[in-house]
């Protein structure tokens, strides 16, 4: 069932870019979205729901980072920091930690603006740096933020993090132990991200980003205030990460600093590179493929290897290498991603 879903989603993503007429495209999207909503009902196992929820959270993350990296061309290697900020916002405001039990929905709404604010604060120092230095500075921020969460033990629970986060409820009905509500929420976030990113790409601001990515000096000469445009990219990108962080923390029921390291940032970058930076449907596919790989395909492959070849391997040991191979191979052979981008 998972594979049917994955195949469907991939077909959907591929098709979207092939239909030039917006009307037709909208119909296709709706037609393909309905099964997305139904899949977890058809396959009611909690594992599937969990997997789908996680996958959707990663898709939302990748779509947010795509605004920064794919559209504006700013290689942000510390994107997980905003994910951490969203997650910790929920962890600190909706848990016994301070006895604050602010409703999930309030925090979900505030996480976007909060992360956007941090996006601008952390983005501001990088604005005048050349691309590779910018990457390293964002990486530095990405290392500092979880480290600070880890160090401020009195507020954040230190290395152990904060357990026992509030279980959200919807009009008095608790989410309970099911991942299903989180899946639908994450799906809504994905839909919002696709809507906003798609709109932005065909707008004044989106064009300014693409122009900056292609030739920053020429963009300035065209009258673009590159500082403002870049800050907007950081802010919008971060806000998706912040919302995803709230979902992630609430679903997991705990936050801890080791969930938001450099590996997470690179995982999301790998999703973009796999799908094609700047290419919305590609990014969706890239993030689905990688999440599926991690949580479904590798474990299955282990079993296959054990039953068919009688070899006992644990392929999940190779995660890092797989991301690494993706980054290298894609840059060498398919720098614009698995699905080639159409001209805009």
């Amino acid at each position, binding site marked *: 069932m998972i594979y049917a879903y994955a195949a469907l989603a991939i077909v959907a993503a591929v098709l979207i870019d092939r239909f030039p007429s917006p009307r037709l495209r909208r119909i296709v999207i709706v037609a393909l979205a309905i099964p997305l909503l139904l899949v977890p009902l058809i396959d009611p196992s909690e594992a599937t729901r969990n997997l789908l929820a996680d996958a959707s959270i990663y898709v939302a993350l990748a779509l947010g980072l795509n605004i920064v990296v794919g559209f504006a061309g700013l290689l942000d290697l510390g994107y997980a920091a905003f994910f951490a900020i969203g997650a910790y916002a929920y962890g600190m405001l909706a848990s016994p930690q301070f006895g604050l039990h602010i409703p999930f929905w309030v925090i979900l709404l505030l996480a976007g603006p909060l992360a956007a604010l941090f996006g601008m604060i952390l983005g501001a120092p990088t604005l005048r740096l050349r691309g590779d230095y910018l990457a390293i500075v964002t990486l530095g921020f990405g290392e500092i933020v979880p480290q600070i969460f880890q160090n401020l033990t009195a507020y954040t629970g230190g290395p152990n993090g904060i357990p026992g986060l509030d279980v959200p409820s919807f009009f008095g009905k608790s989410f309970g132990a099911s991942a299903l509500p989180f899946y639908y929420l994450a799906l809504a976030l994905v839909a919002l991200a696709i809507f906003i990113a798609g709109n932005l790409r065909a707008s004044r601001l989106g064009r300014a980003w693409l122009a900056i990515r292609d030739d920053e000096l020429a963009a300035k000469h065209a009258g673009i205030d590159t500082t403002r445009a870049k800050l907007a990219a950081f802010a919008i990108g971060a806000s998706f990460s912040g919302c995803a962080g709230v979902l992630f923390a609430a679903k997991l029921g705990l936050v801890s600093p080791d969930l938001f390291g450099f590996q997470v940032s690179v995982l999301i970058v790998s999703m973009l590179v796999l799908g094609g930076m700047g290419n919305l449907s590609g990014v969706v596919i890239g993030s689905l493929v990688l999440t599926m790989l991690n949580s479904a395909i590798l474990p299955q492959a282990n079993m296959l290897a054990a039953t068919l070849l009688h070899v006992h391997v644990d392929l999940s040991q*190779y995660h890092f290498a797989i991301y690494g*191979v993706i980054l290298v191979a894609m840059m060498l052979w398919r720098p614009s991603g698995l699905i080639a981008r159409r001209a805009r």
Partner: protein
Amino acid sequence: MHEFGAQLANGLALGAIYALIALGYTMVYGIVELINFAHGDVYTFGSFITLVILTALGITGEAHGVLLVVAVVVALLGSALACGVLAILIERVAYRPLRNAPRLAPLITAIGVSFILENALQLWKGPAPITVPALIPNPRFLGGTFSLAQVSVIVLAVVTMFALQFLVHRTRLGMQMRAVAQDRDAAALVGIDANRTIALTFLIAGALAGIAGMASGVYYQSTWFLNGFGAGLKSFTAAVLGGIGNIAGAMLGGFCIGLLEAFTSATIGGQWANVAVFTVLIAVLVIRPNGLLGTNLPDKL
């Protein structure tokens, strides 16, 4: 006062290792303007190779006399050679094909290579820290403040830096490296083989990482597969702090970062060391991207 001396010694020794790694970053950035993200992992590889060599020599603890000298020399050369070859391989496979690609492309592959190496190292020796034999005996100098291992590491770094200065500024290869760094096409016109020069630069940078890996393995008597991630980042910070492309700057930056880390750990606490170093990285890049001693980069627009 005693505590201060001890931290000074710690900081300088740590800084010497950062300096050795930073030299590699600075050389590579100087010639191809690439942050060689995998450099830190080459350094880890060096410490693993050192362990292999020492084990092969049957060394399990302190060595003395001839055996000590032989062990140090063989481990240093072996590690330098292995890392140099690894660095050349990486350049050939992952960077050279992208030399004319957009600037961020080779940086992304460099991150990829780094992840592959880390995973390989983890599979090789497992995820836990591994012990390296305490090769160096432990007499102390300067009123007991510095251990022999610390003095050796510091001297090694300084001597290496001077050797590198000599190589870059006084030899034919150094002249070719500077020419290629300035303008690859012009260098090609006067008959310099840019590919060969760049490969040799990677060889040297890798060898320096190998030396650093050997030094840190023996000095800390421990290593693990992710060692190079933090050390690499801090060493890159050192290279930038000193002025990227600047050999003396890398050394100065290395010592500064080592001291900063040692004293932060001793005063506020070890968990703040990374925060302090990365704050310096960000501050330098934002306020003074040319570093303390200025860069040696050609001004390419």
